């Protein structure tokens, strides 16, 4: 093949694959909107209406319980995971741990990352049974936090690693303590860390398997930290298979809400990260 044909072909392939990605996203959004449209567009209030008593059978009412369940589970879980993953990632930097230890811990984190979420679900279920508790918001939070932790840690670790050594040197050179230097490093890495947090949040809010056995499949409004709850992905999982078309339409409407929420979050985080990126060392010099 002639070099220039080769180049044109590759250019075509590259553009086509980019178009495919955008196309798939557009299709997913439009299909969920179209299928859930009957419910969602005629009555957008389904997402803020509590479920009726026979919700799973006739789709009466809305899915506020799952929206709230998702928020109440994923927001605290993300907060816990941020705290843990930041601490771990700072530890993994050579100031605190040796190169060898970091390598080993990173390997474990990769294994955890690769572990199917249903395994975390079953693990927390075992704990629930062992302590004689019931499925609840609380255990949903724990399961999601465990699920998010390796993802966020790997992202944060990479972000911290990419901070130029000169920043640490400058900080220590001014007489900073390790902790103060870690804070400076974290600030430098903030755009990357925010990206990791958002990925973790999006994965957490979208996952059904982890919360299925831990938070439960409640059709009631969440009643308390130790009461059963449910999330949007579980709702979708349960309703999409219903024989009643009304109920199935709710599953699509819920999917639509979920996608838009994640999309909004990612765009917001991009804007936020951009603001911090101006402060990143090197800035326009790097």
């Amino acid at each position, binding site marked *: 093949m002639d070099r220039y044909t080769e180049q044109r072909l590759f250019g075509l392939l590259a553009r086509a694959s980019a178009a495919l990605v955008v196309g798939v996203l557009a299709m997913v959004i439009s299909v969920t909107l179209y299928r859930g449209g009957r419910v969602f567009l005629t009555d957008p209030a389904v997402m803020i209406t509590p479920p009726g008593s026979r919700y799973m059978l006739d789709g009466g009412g809305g899915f506020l319980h799952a929206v709230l369940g998702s928020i109440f589970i994923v927001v605290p879980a993300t907060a816990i995971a941020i705290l843990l993953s930041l601490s771990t990632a700072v530890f993994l930097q050579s100031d605190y741990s040796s190169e060898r230890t970091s390598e080993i811990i990173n390997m474990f984190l990769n294994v955890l990352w690769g572990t199917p979420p249903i395994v975390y679900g079953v693990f927390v279920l075992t704990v629930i049974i062992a302590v004689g508790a019931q499925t609840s918001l609380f255990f949903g939070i724990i399961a999601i936090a465990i699920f998010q932790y390796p993802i966020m840690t790997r992202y944060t670790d990479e972000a911290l690693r990419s901070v*130029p050594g000169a920043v*640490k040197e400058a900080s220590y050179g001014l007489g900073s303590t390790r902790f103060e230097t870690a804070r400076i490093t974290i600030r430098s890495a903030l755009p990357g860390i925010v990206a990791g947090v958002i990925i973790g949040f999006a994965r957490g809010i979208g996952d059904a398997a982890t919360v299925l056995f831990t938070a439960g499949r409640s059709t009631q409004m969440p009643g308390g930290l130790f009461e059963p709850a449910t999330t949007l992905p579980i709702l979708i999982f349960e309703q999409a298979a219903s024989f009643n078309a009304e109920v199935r339409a709710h599953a699509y409407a819920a999917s639509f809400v979920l996608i838009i929420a994640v999309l909004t979050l990612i765009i917001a985080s991009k804007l936020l990260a951009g603001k911090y990126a101006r402060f990143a060392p090197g800035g326009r010099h790097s």
Partner: protein
Amino acid sequence: MTTALKTENLTITYTGKREVTALNDVSVEFNENELTAIIGPSGCGKSTLMKSLNRLHEIQPNVDISGEVYLGTQPIYATDEPLPEIRRRVGYVPQKPTALPLSIYNNVAYGLKIHGNHSKAELDKLVKKYLQKVNLWEEVNDRLDAPGAELSTGQLQRLCLARSLAVEPDVLLCDEVTSALDPISAESVEETLKELKEEYTIVMITHSMNQAKRLADKVVFLYLGNLVEANDVNQFFEKPESERTKQFISGQGVVGEDESSDEEKQPATTAAQVL
């Protein structure tokens, strides 16, 4: 002439996969309110020597050190004084101008904030004072809240100087502070350094013989981790004691030879362009 800082039989070995002795039994003195230039080919231990003066090399793993460094009369290794306090007293300006991820104002205020309690008004006053000291105030006083990283490289290097000065160090370590700068910025940083040596003891690494001639009071020449010669600047360049020094300053037959050495014969006035 008072000695502000001195090393005594300082030996530093990197004990990673390959053992490298970066400094071998180096004893050298740095005088108060003088600028001492450390010169030598790449990899001769200049940076290691400089970082050992405020224990900054300790942030890397696998470094062995023996000997001692005295700040005035106080040892900085065999001491109970916390490491951050030692590093405050021996300031460090990195080779590549690097902003902390903060605003221009907070880059200077950072050191003040971590080392003491100052009121907002005091901070304002001190930030202004140190920015003026490095001749940067006029250029940035209308955008103190802008990110430090958005300054030009030359301005950024002066910001780094201001930041280091703000913690009121006794000694200032400058690692090739003009090498990343364009000639005009380099000249202005040099001017600043000249003013600063009235008040501070400065230790500077440089790759430029001409810069050493222009700025230094004393020159320390390292080769392969050994101290070859440490002497008054005029003596060093006019009547070097060691054969190796003669070869190095005339740019002959030394590994990692200095790029500016060809320009030696040019008058010093044009030398700012040769950095």
